[in-house]
C-alpha cells in the first residue's frame, strides 16, 4: 500500500491558499491523509500555526535575553502594541540567541523576524517602521573560525557500503548530536537489522532547544552535507525514503533544505531514494524523536512510550532511523574523510551566545576545555554558562573552567554538552531571571500527555517566579524536581528541573 | 469509577435488546436503575451500545401493564380482573375453541424477548396441552430463511463462529447488515479488526456504517444477492481457486449446483447487480485466499421473497471456498432479538421440538409424547405468517395467544393484520407494555420484564447466560413462565392432554432441568448452577465439558455429515417498482430504536431519535422535489404514511429506506405481504412505493 499523504503539509497548503482553516478543510485533509477527522482536529488544536490569530508582535523569549533586559523589552512592547492595537506576546526559540534580542511580527500564518531589536526599535515598529534588521537567515559571519562542517560541501561522498559506513561511524566514535549523545553506529545497526521491507530515515532538524542554532546554521548554509549524510545512512540501513523534518519556525532553513534537496535530486544523487522536506510542527516537543514521528503521521506531537524504539517501530510503525542534522553531517564527513582523520580532528559544533564578544557557531575539537572556548569567544568575567540549552545546567565559573567539553567528562558532575549550546552570563546578569525563562519555557512547551510534566511544569514556573520575588519554597521545589525528573514520560519533563536545580545547588548566593 | 449515588445493589444480568447478549451490571437505588455498566469478558468485553446503556427507561414507564384485564363480553371493554379469573378465562376459551374447531384453530406466538424457559413452556403449551404444532415466534420475520437454508445445508442454523473469533478472520464479509447500528458491539469489534488488518468486504445497497471503513464495498442492486454470491462462487470454481479438498471431503450436490450457476459469470453478475465485475472478482479471490474468512449477515439477506436462496448462495460460497470449520471461518447470521437464538433452540417453531428435533419424525414425536405424557399431533404446524394469513378463512386460525409480540407493527401490510385481528374469536396479549395490538385483546396478561425475573437468554453466538431479577415487577405483573405454567395446568386439565401436575414448577431452574432432559445433546451439560459462574455455549452435552465454540470442525450436522450445495437462483421481487410506484422501499432499524419501538420509544432513546426519517437519495430527492428535512408522504398500494425526508447518499438511487419503529408512522402499513415460499419470511426489503411532498 502506498504511504498516505501527510497531514501537516496538506493543512499547510490549505492554510497558505485560504489564510485559515475551516472544519470542512480539516475534514478533507484528514480523509486525504487517511486519518479520522478527530485526529486532524487534534493536530489543528495542538500546533500553534493552525490557530489563526491575526497580527501579533512577539518578543522572542530565551535565557540570554531573560538574563538581560527581557522584562523591560516586554514592557516596551506591551505599551507600543497597546497604542498600535496589536496583540503583544512572547514566543520561544528561533535560534537567534547569538544575535538577539529578537522580535517576531506575525500576521496569520506568515511572519517576519527581526534581530537585534531594542526599545527604540520597538518604538519604530509602533510608528510603522522596521524594528531592526531582518533575521530570516543567520548572518554568515556567525560561523567562527571555519572548519569541516562550516565549509560548504563540495563533492559529496559516494556510498562506501553498509558494513564499511557503519564500522567507520563506529570507529569514529560519533554520537547523537541532538543532545542525547547515543552512539550513532548502534542506531544504524539496529535499523539495519530489522527485516521490514519499508524503512525510513528521518532527519531531525527540529532544533528547538534554546541556545542552540548550529543545526539551523547547517540547514541554512550547508544542507547538501546533511542530505548527503541522510542518503548514506538510508543506504546503510536499507531505507527507501528520507524525510527531513525542519523546525516549523525556520523559514529560511526550510527553503534552503528544500532547494538543496531539489538540486541533489536533479543531480541524481539520491538515485531512487525518495526524499521529502517537511515543515515541522513548531514546538519544542517535536524534537523528541518519537513525538517528531507522531507529528509526521499527522498526530499531536507527543512522545511515545518506549519500547518499542523507532528503530523497531518508528514512522507508521516501520523501522526508522531518526538522526539529528549535525550527526548526519558528521556521517557524510566520516564517509568523505575516513574515520581516522575524523577521529583525529573530532569536530563538534558549539552554539555560543550571551556575554561574549564573538557569539556564533564554532567548530571545535571535542574535549576543548571550557575556559579555552570562552577565551576564543571573548568572554569577559563569565560567571556562569548555561550548557546544553534549556534542558541543561548552569556551570559555575571559574570553578569549572577546566571542564573538557566532550561527550563524557561533563557527565561526572551531572552536566552534559547536550547539543553543544553555551549561553554565557557575566557577573552582572540575573541568573534567576534566566532560570525563570527556562521554567516558563518548559511550562509552555509541555505537550500535555503525562501528568507530572503537564501539571508540574506550571508549578515549577510559579515557584521560580515566587522565589525571585522573595517567597522561597525549597522543599516544594525539591518535590517537583523529583516528580518531574523521575516521573515524566520523556526528556522534556525529565530535564525541566535541571537548570533551576543546578542554580540552587551551585550558586549559594542566589540560593540564599 | 465512583458512582455519584451509592447503589442499594448492583445486579449482574444480560441486556434485553439485541442478540449480542451483552452482560451488564445494573446499579439500583430506590428501585430505579441509574447506571448501566458493561461487564468484562464474553460476549461484550466491557462495551455496550446506547440502547443497553441508556435505553432501560421502559421498565418504569407508565405504560407498563400492571393488572390482568378481561373483555368479559364481545364488544365490551377490557376490565381489570383477578389472575384467577383471567387465567381460567384464557384456558376455558382456548379449550372451547380447540374442541369446537380442532387444536389447529389455536395459534401460539412465543417470544424471542422471553427466556429460554418461557419459550420452552410456550411450545409445551401448544404441543402438550393444546395438541398442536402451531407455535412460532418472531424469527419467522427475521431469520427464518437463514434457519431454513442453514438447517437444510449444514444441519445447524446458528452462527458457526463466536464473537471472540472476529479478530481471527483475515477477511470478513458483511452483507445485508447495518452492524454498527443493529449489533453495535459486534459492529465496533469488526471495525476494530479492520483497523488491525482484517480485510473487510461489505456487500450492501446502502452505505451502512461498515461500508465507510470497508476495503471493498459492493453496492449491489437490492435483491440481487444470489447473483452476486453465485458469481463469486462460480468464479472460484471456474478459475480453479476453490478448495477442492474441502469440497471432495465435505460437500455434496456439486454437479447440480455447478449446472445452476452456468450463466452467473462475472460479467453477467456485473450487469445484474450493478457492481463492477472486477470488484466481484477481487472479493471472491480475497475471500477464498484468506487464511480464515467469515461471512456475517442479517435482514438484508433474509427478508426477501428469495431469502432462503440468498442464504443458500452464501452457504455455497463458504463451502466451495472451504471457509468453514476452523477458527474465524464460518457463516454467521447475526441474530436480532436478545433470545431469538434461544426461542428457536427451545422449539418455539412449528417444525421442531426443543433442540431442533423435527416434528415430522414419528420417533421424535413418540419420544416427546412419552416425555410429556401427552399425545403428540401428527399435523404439521403452520408458520406465524401463514397463520395470520389464514385468519377468517375456512380451517384457519381462530384464536391467537401472543406473548411479547405486537403483530400490528411487526407484520407486513398493517391494515390487513388489523382486519385479521378483528376476525379472531379470541386473542390473548401477554406483554410488559401496552402495544398496538393490545386494544384487540380479549385477555391481557401483565408480564414481568427481563429485570424482574430469573431465567436464561441465548445470544447470537449460542451463549446461554443467566438473567437475574433487579426488582419486583410492577403491580400484579408476573413472569411469563409463571403465567404459562398456570395456563398450561388449566388447559391440560380441560383438554385432558398430559398431566396437569407436569405444569408445576418451583421456578425457571426447574423448567430448565426439563429442557436439559428433553434435549440432552445440546443442553445436557448446561445447568443454572454452572451458569452462575459463566455463560456456556451449546452444544454442551455434559457438565464436564465446555461448550463448543467453532461449529463444523469435524464435518457437518446433516445425516451424511456433508454440506449440501444447492442451486440458489435469483427471483424478481414480488412487487417490482413501476409507473405509479417507482421506488423500492426497504425497511429496517436504526441505532436508537428497537423493532416496533415499544421499548426504546419509552426511554431516553426517544429524545435522540424522535420520529420517522426516511432516507432518500439525492437523485430521487431532486426528481420528486423533496428537500432534506421536509415532510413527505410515502405511498404504496396498501397505504400511506408521513415521514421526514433525510436526503443522503446512504441509500442508492431508486431505493428509499424507512425504519420500522414508529407506531404512528408504521412502515408496515406500506409493506407487501409477500413471502419466501420456503421460510415464509415476508419480503420487507422490497415493496414498491412513491414519494410525495406533504
Amino acid at each position, binding site marked *: 500500500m502506498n504511504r498516505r499523504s501527510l497531514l501537516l503539509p496538506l493543512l499547510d497548503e490549505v492554510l497558505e491558499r485560504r489564510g485559515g482553516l475551516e472544519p470542512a478543510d480539516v475534514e478533507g485533509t484528514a480523509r486525504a491523509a487517511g486519518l479520522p477527522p478527530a485526529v486532524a482536529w487534534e493536530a489543528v488544536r*495542538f500546533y500553534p500555526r493552525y490557530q489563526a490569530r491575526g497580527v501579533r508582535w512577539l518578543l522572542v523569549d530565551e535565557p540570554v535575553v531573560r538574563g538581560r533586559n527581557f522584562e523591560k523589552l516586554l514592557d516596551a512592547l506591551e505599551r507600543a502594541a497597546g497604542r498600535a492595537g496589536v496583540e503583544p506576546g512572547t514566543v520561544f526559540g528561533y535560534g537567534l540567541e547569538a544575535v538577539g534580542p529578537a522580535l517576531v511580527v506575525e500576521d496569520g500564518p506568515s511572519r517576519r523576524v527581526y534581530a537585534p531589536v531594542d526599545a527604540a526599535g520597538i518604538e519604530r515598529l509602533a510608528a510603522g517602521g522596521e524594528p531592526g534588521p531582518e533575521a530570516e537567515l543567520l548572518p554568515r559571519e556567525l560561523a567562527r573560525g571555519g572548519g569541516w562542517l562550516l565549509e560548504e560541501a563540495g563533492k559529496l561522498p559516494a556510498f562506501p557500503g553498509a558494513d564499511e559506513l557503519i564500522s567507520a561511524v563506529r570507529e569514529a566514535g560519533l554520537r547523537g548530536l541532538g543532545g542525547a549523545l547515543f552512539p550513532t553506529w548502534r542506531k544504524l545497526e539496529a535499523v539495519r537489522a530489522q527485516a521490514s521491507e519499508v524503512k525510513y530515515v528521518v532527519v531531525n532538524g527540529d532544533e528547538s532547544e534554546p541556545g542552540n542554532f548550529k543545526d539551523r546554521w547547517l540547514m541554512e548554509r550547508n544542507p547538501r552535507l546533511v542530505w548527503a549524510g541522510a542518503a548514506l545512512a538510508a543506504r546503510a540501513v536499507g531505507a527507501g525514503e528520507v524525510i527531513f523534518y525542519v523546525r516549523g519556525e525556520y523559514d529560511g532553513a526550510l527553503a534552503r533544505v528544500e532547494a538543496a534537496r531539489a538540486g541533489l535530486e536533479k543531480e541524481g544523487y539520491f538515485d531512487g531514494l525518495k526524499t521529502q522536506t517537511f515543515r515541522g510542527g513548531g514546538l519544542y516537543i517535536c524534537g523528541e524523536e518519537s513525538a517528531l514521528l507522531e507529528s509526521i503521521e499527522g498526530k499531536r506531537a507527543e512522545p511515545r512510550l518506549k519500547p518499542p524504539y523507532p528503530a523497531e517501530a518508528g514512522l507508521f510503525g516501520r523501522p526508522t532511523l531518526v538522526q539529528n542534522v549535525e550527526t548526519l553531517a558528521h556521517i557524510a564527513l566520516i564517509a568523505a574523510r575516513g574515520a581516522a582523520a575524523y577521529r583525529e580532528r573530532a569536530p563538534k559544533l558549539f552554539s555560543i551566545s550571551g556575554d561574549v564578544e564573538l557569539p556564533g557557531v564554532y567548530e571545535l575539537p571535542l574535549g576543548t576545555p571550557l575556559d579555552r572556548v570562552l577565551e576564543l569567544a571573548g568572554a569577559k568575567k563569565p560567571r556562569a554558562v548555561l550548557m546544553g540549552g534549556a534542558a541543561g545546567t548552569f556551570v559555575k565559573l571559574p570553578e569549572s573552567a577546566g571542564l573538557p567539553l566532550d561527550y563524557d567528562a561533563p557527565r561526572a558532575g551531572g552536566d552534559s554538552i547536550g547539543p553543544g549550546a553555551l549561553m554565557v552570563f557575566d557577573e552582572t546578569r540575573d541568573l534567576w531571571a534566566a532560570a525563570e525563562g527556562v521554567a516558563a519555557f518548559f511550562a509552555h512547551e509541555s505537550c*500535555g500527555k503525562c501528568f*507530572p510534566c503537564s501539571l508540574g511544569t506550571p508549578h515549577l514556573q510559579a515557584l521560580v517566579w515566587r522565589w525571585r520575588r522573595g517567597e522561597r519554597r525549597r522543599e516544594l521545589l525539591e518535590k517537583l524536581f523529583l516528580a518531574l525528573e523521575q516521573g515524566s514520560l520523556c526528556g522534556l519533563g525529565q530535564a525541566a528541573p535541571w537548570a533551576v536545580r543546578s542554580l540552587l545547588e551551585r550558586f549559594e548566593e542566589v540560593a540564599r | 469509577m465512583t458512582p*455519584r449515588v451509592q447503589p442499594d445493589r448492583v445486579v449482574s444480568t444480560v441486556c434485553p435488546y439485541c442478540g449480542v447478549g451483552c452482560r451488564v451490571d445494573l446499579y439500583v437505588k430506590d428501585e430505579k436503575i441509574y447506571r448501566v455498566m458493561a461487564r468484562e469478558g464474553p460476549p461484550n468485553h466491557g462495551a455496550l451500545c446506547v440502547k443497553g446503556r441508556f435505553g432501560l427507561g421502559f421498565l418504569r414507564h407508565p405504560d407498563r401493564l400492571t393488572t390482568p384485564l378481561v373483555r368479559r363480553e364481545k364488544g365490551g371493554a377490557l376490565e381489570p380482573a383477578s389472575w384467577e379469573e383471567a387465567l381460567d378465562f384464557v384456558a376455558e376459551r382456548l379449550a372451547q375453541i380447540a374442541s369446537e374447531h380442532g387444536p389447529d384453530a389455536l395459534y401460539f406466538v412465543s417470544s424471542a424477548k422471553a427466556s429460554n424457559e418461557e419459550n420452552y413452556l410456550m411450545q409445551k403449551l401448544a404441543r402438550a396441552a393444546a395438541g398442536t404444532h402451531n407455535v412460532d415466534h418472531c424469527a419467522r420475520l427475521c431469520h427464518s430463511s437463514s434457519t431454513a437454508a442453514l438447517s437444510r445445508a449444514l444441519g445447524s442454523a446458528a452462527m458457526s463462529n463466536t464473537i471472540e473469533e472476529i479478530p481471527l478472520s483475515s477477511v470478513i464479509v458483511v452483507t445485508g447488515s447495518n452492524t454498527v447500528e443493529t449489533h453495535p458491539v459486534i459492529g465496533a469489534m469488526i471495525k476494530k479488526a479492520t483497523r488491525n488488518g482484517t480485510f473487510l468486504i461489505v456487500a450492501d445497497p446502502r452505505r451502512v456504517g461498515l461500508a465507510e471503513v470497508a476495503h471493498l464495498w459492493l453496492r449491489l442492486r437490492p435483491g440481487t444477492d444470489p447473483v452476486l454470491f453465485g458469481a463469486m462462487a462460480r468464479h472460484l470454481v471456474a478459475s480453479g481457486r476453490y478448495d477442492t479438498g474441502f469440497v471432495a471431503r465435505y460437500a455434496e450436490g456439486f454437479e447440480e449446483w455447478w449446472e445452476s450457476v452456468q450463466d452467473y459469470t462475472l460479467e453477467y453478475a456485473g450487469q445484474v447487480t450493478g457492481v463492477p465485475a472486477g470488484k466481484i472478482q477481487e472479493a471472491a479471490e480475497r475471500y477464498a485466499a484468506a487464511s480464515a474468512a467469515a461471512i456475517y449477515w442479517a435482514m438484508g439477506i433474509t427478508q426477501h421473497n428469495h431469502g432462503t436462496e440468498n442464504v443458500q448462495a452464501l452457504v455455497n460460497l463458504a463451502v466451495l471456498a472451504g471457509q468453514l470449520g476452523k477458527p474465524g471461518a464460518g457463516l454467521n447470521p447475526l441474530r436480532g432479538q436478545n433470545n431469538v437464538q434461544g426461542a428457536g433452540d427451545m422449539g418455539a417453531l412449528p417444525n421442531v421440538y426443543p433442540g431442533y428435533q423435527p416434528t415430522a419424525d414419528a420417533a421424535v414425536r413418540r419420544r416427546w409424547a412419552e416425555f410429556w405424557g401427552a399425545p403428540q399431533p401428527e399435523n404439521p404446524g403452520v408458520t406465524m405468517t401463514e397463520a395470520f394469513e389464514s385468519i377468517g378463512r375456512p380451517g384457519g386460525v381462530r384464536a391467537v395467544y401472543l406473548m411479547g409480540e405486537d403483530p400490528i407493527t411487526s407484520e407486513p401490510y398493517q391494515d390487513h393484520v388489523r382486519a385479521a385481528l378483528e376476525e379472531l374469536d379470541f386473542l390473548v396479549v401477554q406483554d410488559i407494555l401496552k402495544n398496538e395490538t393490545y386494544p384487540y385483546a380479549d385477555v391481557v396478561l401483565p408480564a414481568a420484564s427481563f429485570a424482574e425475573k430469573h431465567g436464561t437468554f441465548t445470544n447470537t453466538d449460542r451463549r446461554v447466560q443467566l438473567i437475574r431479577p433487579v426488582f419486583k415487577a410492577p403491580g400484579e405483573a408476573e413472569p411469563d413462565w409463571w403465567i404459562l405454567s398456570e395456563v398450561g395446568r388449566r388447559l391440560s386439565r380441560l383438554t385432558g392432554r398430559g398431566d396437569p401436575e407436569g405444569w408445576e414448577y418451583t421456578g425457571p431452574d426447574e423448567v430448565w432441568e426439563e429442557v436439559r432432559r428433553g434435549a440432552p445433546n445440546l443442553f445436557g451439560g448446561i445447568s443454572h448452577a454452572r451458569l452462575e459462574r459463566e455463560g456456556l455455549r451449546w452444544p454442551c452435552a455434559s457438565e464436564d465439558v465446555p461448550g463448543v465454540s467453532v461449529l463444523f470442525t469435524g464435518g457437518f450436522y446433516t445425516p451424511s455429515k456433508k454440506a449440501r450445495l444447492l442451486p440458489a437462483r435469483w427471483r424478481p421481487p414480488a412487487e417490482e417498482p413501476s409507473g405509479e410506484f417507482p421506488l423500492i422501499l426497504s425497511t429496517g432499524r436504526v441505532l436508537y430504536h428497537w423493532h416496533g419501538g415499544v421499548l426504546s420509544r419509552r426511554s431516553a432513546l426517544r429524545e435522540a431519535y424522535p420520529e420517522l426519517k426516511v432516507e432518500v437519495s439525492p437523485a430521487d430527492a431532486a426528481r420528486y422535489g423533496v428537500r432534506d428535512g421536509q415532510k413527505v408522504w410515502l405511498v404504496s398500494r396498501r397505504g400511506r404514511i408521513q415521514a421526514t425526508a433525510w436526503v443522503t447518499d446512504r441509500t442508492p438511487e431508486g431505493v428509499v429506506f424507512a425504519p420500522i419503529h414508529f407506531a404512528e408512522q408504521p412502515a408496515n402499513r406500506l409493506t407487501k405481504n409477500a413471502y419466501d415460499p420456503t421460510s415464509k419470511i415476508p419480503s420487507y426489503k422490497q415493496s414498491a412505493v412513491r414519494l410525495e411532498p406533504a
Partner: protein
Amino acid sequence: MSRVPVVINGVLVEAEPGETILNAARRAGVEIPTICHHERTGTKGLCRLCVVEMAGRGRPEPACATEVAAGMVVNTESEELAALRRTVLELVALETNVEHDDGLAGWLEKYGADPARWGEPLAGRRARQTIRDNAFYLREYDKCYNCRRCLDACGEGIQGVWALAFAGRGAEAGVTTVFDLTLAEAGCVFCGNCVQVCPTGALVPLEEISLAAGGLL
C-alpha cells in the same frame, strides 16, 4: 507457555508471558496506584502513578506499560516512589475536582497527600464548564484528569467513532469533540463506553445526576 519468574517487592512471582508488571503485581496481591490505565483502553503511561523501580534501570518505569521479563527485580514502593506519587497526586487533586473519585481519595490518604501546600491551582481545570448536550450523559470537565481513557474508548480502543478529541497543550489541554461540536454533531453514537471507562466521575449518566439531585433535574 512457560511462566516468567520476576521478583516483586522481594517476592518471587510467576508472571504470564507478555503481561505487564501491573497485572503481575495485581495477581500477586500488590496494588500499584494508577489512573490512566484501563483494561479496555490503550491508555497507559500517562499518569505515571504506577511507575516502579526496576533493578538496572536508571529511572522508574510505568508498571502498566512494561512487560515482565525473566529475572526482573521490581520494587513498587520506596520512599522516592512515594514522594513522586504524592506530588503527582497532590497536583491532580489541587487542579481537578476529585470529589467523586473514591479511588483517588484512597491513594491521597495512603501517600499522605496535602494538595493545599501548592497554593492556588494553575491549570484552569476547575473552571471548565459542564456540558449537557444530549439526552444520556453529562460531561463535567472540572473533574477530568486528562487520562484519555474516554478518547481511546471512543476511537482506537473500542468504538472506532472518534467523536472525542484532545485539544491544547500542557496544563491547558483537555477533552473536546471533533471540531468542538456537540456530541451528536460530532458523530457520537452514545455507546457510553466513555462513561464506562471514566475513572473520575466527569462523565456521568443523567439518570445518576438526577437521582443524586433527588430527582430534581
